[in-house]
């Protein structure tokens, strides 16, 4: 082991150890407040209470003397005079319409509003409904050669190059060498300028907005978030330790999300049974129980190359082969248009292990 590897190994081991056992060494105390406390006697406490106690109601309060009648102040009757009337306000001249005072002060915490549509936040999960049919693999960068004029890409043909080695020919020295008329070869596909950032118009973004997910339970969120973080951290560390980077599909952890319902499982079973034809099986092959594994694409179609016989019971190898052939045909034929499976639960049915045990047909 060279020095670099040793250092890397020790470093990673340390990192893993820190993640696993770091919590125990963390002695930083939690923040807290300090209050002054003094000891007082009961009397002092009562006195202090009395000072702030509400006033007591008393009953020996003298009633106030009634006011004396002041006759001089009585109004004298006078001759009847017409009342002085005040002019009514001139309604024809209304007051100027005063516009209300507008508070032109800028509100605190002013938000900038732009006339642009809100940016959709791409959900982290649950995008299966609008998942593009192809995996988001990086596209090949378009042509970077420069040519004087743009030329179309040559048409793809199904013709495979012949593997047959053509015998080398030598020019006939006697006969007149006639150059065969050849068609001008189509120039290589090229563009007139280099545009390294050019990409296809095709976008992998979903064409429609995704229905927002329901708000998760607060309690659940609080409970799972740290655990998820910890799991991710550990997984990252483990992946790092193993020299692996990104998780492949096969290395994905246990399927997430709700499991298939009974009806969904039954639907898959019925779909396979519909094509599981044991009519041409020998009696021995009919008695065999086989276990078959198949990988499924997101569109519900079986990946034919992935179908494999895991093991068999109660029969010879030849009988198991016959039974497997029938099972394989069933998966391929009835999965031709894709099995009806909930795409949002893809993790649950990405790999299917089927036990073919046609006991009712024996």
């Amino acid at each position, binding site marked *: 082991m060279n020095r670099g590897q040793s250092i890397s190994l020790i470093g990673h081991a340390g990192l893993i150890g820190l993640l696993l056992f770091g919590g125990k060494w963390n002695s930083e105390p939690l923040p807290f407040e300090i209050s002054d406390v003094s000891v007082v006697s009961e009397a002092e406490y009562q006195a202090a209470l009395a000072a702030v106690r509400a006033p007591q109601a008393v009953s020996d309060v003298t009633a106030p003397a009634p006011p004396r009648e002041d006759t001089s102040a009585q109004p004298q009757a006078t001759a009847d005079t017409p009342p002085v009337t005040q002019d009514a306000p001139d309604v024809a001249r209304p007051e100027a319409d005063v516009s209300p005072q507008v508070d032109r002060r800028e509100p605190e915490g002013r938000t900038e509003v732009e006339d642009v549509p809100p940016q959709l936040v791409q959900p982290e999960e649950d995008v299966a409904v609008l998942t593009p049919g192809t995996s988001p693999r990086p596209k090949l960068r378009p042509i970077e050669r420069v040519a004087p004029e743009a030329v179309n890409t040559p048409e793809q043909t199904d013709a495979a190059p012949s593997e047959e080695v053509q015998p080398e020919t030598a020019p006939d020295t006697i006969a007149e060498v006639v150059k065969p008329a050849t068609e001008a070869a189509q120039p290589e596909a090229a563009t007139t300028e280099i545009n390294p950032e050019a990409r296809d118009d095709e976008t992998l973004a979903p064409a429609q907005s995704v229905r927002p997910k329901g708000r998760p339970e607060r309690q659940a969120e609080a409970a799972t978030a740290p655990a998820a973080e910890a799991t991710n951290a550990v997984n990252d560390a483990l992946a790092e330790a*193993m020299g692996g980077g990104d998780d492949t599909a096969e290395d994905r952890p246990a399927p997430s999300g709700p499991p298939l319902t009974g009806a969904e499982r039954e639907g898959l079973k019925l779909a396979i049974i519909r094509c599981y034809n044991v009519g041409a099986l020998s009696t021995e092959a009919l008695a065999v129980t086989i276990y078959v594994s198949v990988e499924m694409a997101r569109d519900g179609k079986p990946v034919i190359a992935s179908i494999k016989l895991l093991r068999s019971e109660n029969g010879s190898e030849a009988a198991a082969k016959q039974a497997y052939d029938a099972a394989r045909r069933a998966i391929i*034929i009835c999965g031709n248009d894709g099995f009806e499976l909930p795409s949002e639960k893809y993790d*649950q049915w990405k790999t299917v292990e089927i036990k073919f045990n046609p006991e009712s047909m024996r």
Partner: protein
Amino acid sequence: MILRLLSFVLVAALSAKTVAQAEPLRIEITDAVIEPLPVAVPEFVAETAGAGPVAADIARVVAEDLKGTGLFREIDKAAFISQISSFDAPVQFADWKAINAQALITGAVTVQGEQVIVKFRVYDVFAGQELGKGLQLAGTRAGWRRMAHKVADQVYTRITGEGGYFDSRVVYVSETGPKDDRKKRLAIMDYDGANNQFLTDSSAIVLAPRFSPTGDRVLYTSYETGFPKIYLLDVASVGRRVLQSREGTMSFAPRFAPDGRRVVFSLESGGNTDIYLMDVTTGAEQRLTHAPSIETAPSFSPDGRQIVFESDRSGSQQLYIMSASGGEARRISTGPGRYGTPVWSPRGDLVAFTKQSKGRFHIGIMRVDGTGEKLLTASFLEEGPTWAPNGRVIMFTRETQGTDGQSSLYSVDISGRNLQRVRTEGGASDPSWSPLQP
């Protein structure tokens, strides 16, 4: 020390990663469908001038053999997208898949004078690969049907995994005339009714012909002398001889032992019928049963160690199994009704029988321990089952009701499916299926 610790950490990390891998969805399929498998049998390629008619005939017989099993369905040629114009050309599997052909049989025929050469290939269309390797057979113009049957046997074996039965023959009792004056004679034909030939004339009543294990000889019972006696007939020469028998006895229901050198049969003497074993060459007899009841219809197990037979020793006709050297027998039939004419399957796992219950006759099968009894047919009168060489199909006699009732041969799969009448010239009864021809 540090390295050990690091190794431990890495192993632990690896284990944790393995545990974290996704669990597959597990389901169990306990049911299935039973439908004929769609097969495509394009015309065989004629590789020489004049080979066209033979090529067409061979392809037709191959297709009919496969269809006749009830396990295959021939796809209409009009639906073909691809045509097979060259035997060695690569197969366009997508074209055959598109018409749901699950198996494809291609072939080519060469005719040179009287010699016919046929070659064929079988493909699993959905697997996109050949089943087994291409095979070539050579024969004569006159034997083109047998060549076709051999091709069909190979195809059947490659697809189903069990032996075929097409290149085989059936010997039976041909019946003509009204019921009260019926003429009976031995006849032999291909399993599908073709190439029918008569082996005896109708001057004497003949019963129960049975093929030898090699298919070259036939045992049968004849009333030629007024008493039933057992005869041995050579199929090729049609020469025959009576097996040695004692005066004043009746011998009948013969059947070969698997070694072909001994014959087990019933012999009636003094009003009692028991089972005997005879050496065909020397005529030496050995009595196998000693009961006052009627013991008859013996049939050897394929390994030659046991014999199944019928007996009324319990008061009704039932099935028993004993050692090939005689001795104590154990009863294997336990259901209601009467059981008779047991025949041991070539595979050794089943016994076919005739059952009479509630006024009807049935052909049925059961395991050799008496369990798993299954009745395959039911009618006014049927009897005398015989097994196909592969132990998958049973042929038997069915007779219609009435004074002008006619006997015919029928075949049925041991699953009880694909009951069909066998083509014969006139009435027919008592079939015996030969082994596959060499």
